[in-house]
């Protein structure tokens, strides 16, 4: 286990180092798919220059990083490449989480195996399969071309991913304090991880054997405790930012920028084209409609998946990366790293082939249509947006497919793998 992991790390570092030194690095860091106005390195440099001159980095409309981030780079700007090289490895921590998780599950299954019908044993994962999952997660993240591109472009998206990964790691390790602090940090970075509060809470409740019951005082006690950690650290972090900068400039410049989407540079998301075409007086209404998408799904998903908080985390991260206002391929890479963890769902996936074809074709078509639109001038924005739509369609299909497969597996675990109709013929499950 350690040897392949080391090999993997060496390969990953080599690829990145080679790309950093090659002439491709500059090209990649200009790609709109890889960097967004929120996390472009060019903008960080601009912010740093302003800070050094004693001007507020948020004066002007270029810099949209959080204050803590700029102070981090203020001290490490000379080692920026190293910071970016290192940040993906925090995501490796993700891989470590699966070890305890699986042990936990194994025990659960051992305890409850008599409860499941006999033919379902093939649905349970063997310890050997589980043994390789951390390695696969690490491979999926470190060797994913999306991550590599994002890292070579020095997009700060990699750091945000690292924070979210650390948060998941601490959550799964069961440390409510660290988890709350890291969740606050992730929220502070990009707001949207706010929706991860629900799955984290559900996980801790499950871990502590507290039933989700609104009339139980123990439920409320723990919820308030976790919420207090979360809100408290959020206040502390925000206050710290205020004291570092001496002004509240960063609130409109970072969070206002995320929410009101003033920058309509094309990206792989759904916002830019829609808001570029829209009449100005509908803007507020549609911003609300678009932004609600990210937050709204938390409620039905938390109800449906309250027994499966880890899967809920995956769903939430995927939804954030699809519906956020400035998505980049780095965000996509984060939830894709989870896919090997659900390798036991493959037999129930229905459209995975179609989805992978769509995602693959779209990744190739993004630069082609960008070239036709911007350089050749023969295509136009509609062509590019069509591919954006297709890409997001693929992602949504992927997530819903995993959701369906997860539910179906649970169904089979309870009702047996080979379902019979009442008249004895083989039954099929239909999701309607």
């Amino acid at each position, binding site marked *: 286990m350690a040897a*392949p992991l080391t090999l993997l790390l060496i390969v990953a570092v080599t690829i990145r180092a080679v790309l950093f030194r090659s002439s491709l690095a500059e090209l990649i860091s200009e790609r709109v798919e890889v960097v967004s106005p929120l996390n472009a390195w060019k903008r960080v440099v601009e912010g740093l220059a302003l800070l050094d001159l004693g001007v507020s980095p948020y004066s002007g409309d270029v810099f949209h990083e959080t204050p803590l981030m700029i102070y981090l780079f203020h001290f490490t700007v000379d080692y920026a490449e190293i910071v970016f090289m290192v940040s993906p490895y925090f995501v490796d921590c993700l891989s470590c989480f699966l070890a305890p998780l699986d042990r936990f599950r194994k025990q659960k299954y051992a305890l409850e195996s008599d409860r499941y019908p006999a033919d379902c044993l093939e649905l349970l994962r063997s310890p050997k399969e589980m043994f390789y999952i951390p390695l696969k997660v690490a491979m999926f993240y470190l060797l994913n071309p999306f991550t590599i591109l994002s890292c070579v472009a020095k997009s700060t998206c990699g750091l945000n991913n690292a924070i979210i990964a650390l948060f998941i790691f601490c959550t799964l390790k069961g440390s409510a304090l660290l988890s709350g602090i890291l969740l606050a940090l992730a929220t502070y970075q990009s707001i949207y991880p706010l929706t991860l509060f629900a799955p984290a809470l559900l996980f801790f409740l499950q871990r502590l054997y507290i039933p989700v019951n609104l009339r139980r005082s123990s439920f409320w006690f723990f919820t308030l405790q976790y919420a207090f950690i979360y809100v408290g650290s959020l206040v502390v972090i925000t206050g710290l930012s205020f004291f570092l900068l001496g002004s509240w400039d960063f609130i409109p410049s970072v969070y206002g920028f995320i929410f009101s989407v003033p920058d309509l540079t094309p990206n792989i998301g759904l916002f830019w084209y829609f808001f570029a075409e829209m009449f100005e007086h509908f803007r507020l209404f549609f911003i609300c409609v678009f932004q609600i998408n990210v937050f709204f799904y938390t409620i039905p998903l938390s109800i449906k998946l309250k027994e499966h908080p880890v899967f809920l985390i995956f769903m939430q991260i995927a939804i954030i990366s699809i519906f956020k206002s400035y998505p980049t391929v780095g965000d996509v890479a984060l939830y894709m790293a989870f896919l090997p963890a659900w390798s036991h769902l493959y037999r129930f996936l229905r459209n995975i*082939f179609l989805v992978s074809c769509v995602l693959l074709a779209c990744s190739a078509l993004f630069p*082609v249509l960008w070239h036709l639109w911007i350089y050749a001038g023969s295509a136009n924005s509609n062509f590019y947006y069509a591919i954006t739509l297709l890409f997001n369609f693929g992602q949504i299909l992927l997530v819903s497919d995993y959701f369906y497969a997860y539910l179906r597996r649970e169904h089979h675990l309870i009702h047996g793998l080979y379902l019979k109709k009442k008249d004895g013929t083989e039954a099929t499950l239909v999701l309607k």
Partner: protein
Amino acid sequence: MGLLSDPNRRKALTNLLTRLNAPICMVCYLAAIVWFMGLAFEPFTLRTYMSENAMGSTMVEERFSSGERALSLAKEFDAHKTKAGGMPVEWLVKAMQARGLEVFTQSFSRKLPFPDENKERYMVRGTNVYGILRAPRAPRTEALVITAPCSPGNSNNQAVGLLLALAQYFRNQIFWAKDIIFLVNEHDLIGMQAWLEGYHHTNITGMEYSPLQGRAGSIQAALSLELSSDVITSLDLILEGLNGQLPNLDLANLFYAFCQKLGVLCTIQGKLQRNDWDTAEGYTHAAQTMMLMVLKQACGRSWGDHGLFLRYHIEAASIRGINGFRHYKMDVATIGRLLEGMVRKLNNLLERLHQSYFFYLLPSLSRFVSIGYYMPAFGLLAVILLLRVSFPGLMLHVCFSVSLQPSGPGVLTVLTPVVISHLTGVALYLLPVHLQEMAVEHFPVSETEAVVLTAVAIYTAGLALPHNTQRLLSGEGTEQGWKVLKLTALLYLAVLLGCTALINFSLGFVLAVTLVPITASMTPHMPKALSALAMVLLSPAFTILYCVFIYQELIEAPVSVSEGWMLFLSVISQGILDHALYGSLVYPLLALFVYPCWLMFWNILFWS
């Protein structure tokens, strides 16, 4: 979504696709060919129309009448050119200055990666001369360009003469709202490339040039002029630019409109328009014209000096005078009037040409096929690949479980052929130019031959690779191994051809027509010798060879096999040169992607 989520209907659909896979693929292929050939049939095409308001409704009266002066200037230019043994820079500068232009020169030099035997040049040194007529009526933020190449020998003198006469005439008009740049470029495309790079402050091809001293506004449109005789019978419009890029269709419409107005015979691809579309000859004529356009576009080179403008977002076309149809004759003054009219309409533009089509094929000058009509022909071919993908896709869960085993045999069996084919592709791309010196030392060939023959040799050597690949593998190739490889290769080919067709439809379509049938049906269980022969005959190199023969046939200059072979070799050297000099993408595309992809299928055939 019902179809995707209802398992019963899904099963029915997959059953249907599996059972009827081969017939459906066959029908798709035939339908694609029939659809494509049907595009030239007049009722299926659209009539061209002017979309740009600024050029459509404004009336222009052409008054240019100094045809004689143009011809005498041409003679004078010819004399000075012969005397100087090249571009008569001083005379040109004086001539332009005398006509009241701001005149500047730009010198450039370029060493070709290997000697160009078609044009007999290796170390190229030259000077561009250009004069700017400043717009009297507007803030000079936009410009138009008229160029005439200064060619060796006594060709193209009339173009330079007409250019100077036009400059003199335009200087006395007051209605110019855009600067007009009159450019005489030496060494055709190389000079043009140097001038354009100088104008836009870029350097993408390693050209050495002196910076431009005078500039005008952003260039909106450009016309390139090629006239070689005093009497012209018809004008030919050339649209195909670098990498198969085409100018906005409105530019062709503009040319056609003025030809109609002045009663000038106009051709495209050197072919006159016929009115008898309902006869077999009429249809064949249109089909030939369209095929010529497809072949020219597919080869991705610039067919006139205008081709390099397109890269900079400048709509441009070349107008070539032809002296062939004996019954019609027109003087230089008529051509001058035609150019005057075109430039004046372009002068009226309020924004860049963008209203009309950028993706089109022209079966004649008055008819066009838009992207919406020709894409289905390619789509039908791409569907075959996807259908074949979905066929082995039934064992997809197997594939996925294989590919998800880290460092298991599944990944390795596929990865080895993929990597080796791509390394061969890289060798094909890099070695011919870099190894020429060594090849010249050891073999009695010239540099150009050395480059081309090295390319052919590496290409052929690539065919011997599968056996080596097999030895590198740990064990025997499994049944599952080739299926996974085929799945990868089919997907790869589909994405590759799709992207190519978007950028350069003709190239994508020509490649798809030859590559799809054999790749879609390839399995290791076919008779080896026969299918190997079929694969070689349908490989990318043979596609180029066929294109050479078909092209020669279409321009009514059929060649024998040995001449065809020589032409094929020169096409390859031109392709490599175009890539090195102007950044044409066809050679790297073929060498780095299409050929390795084809090798992967070759690998499947010899899977044991």
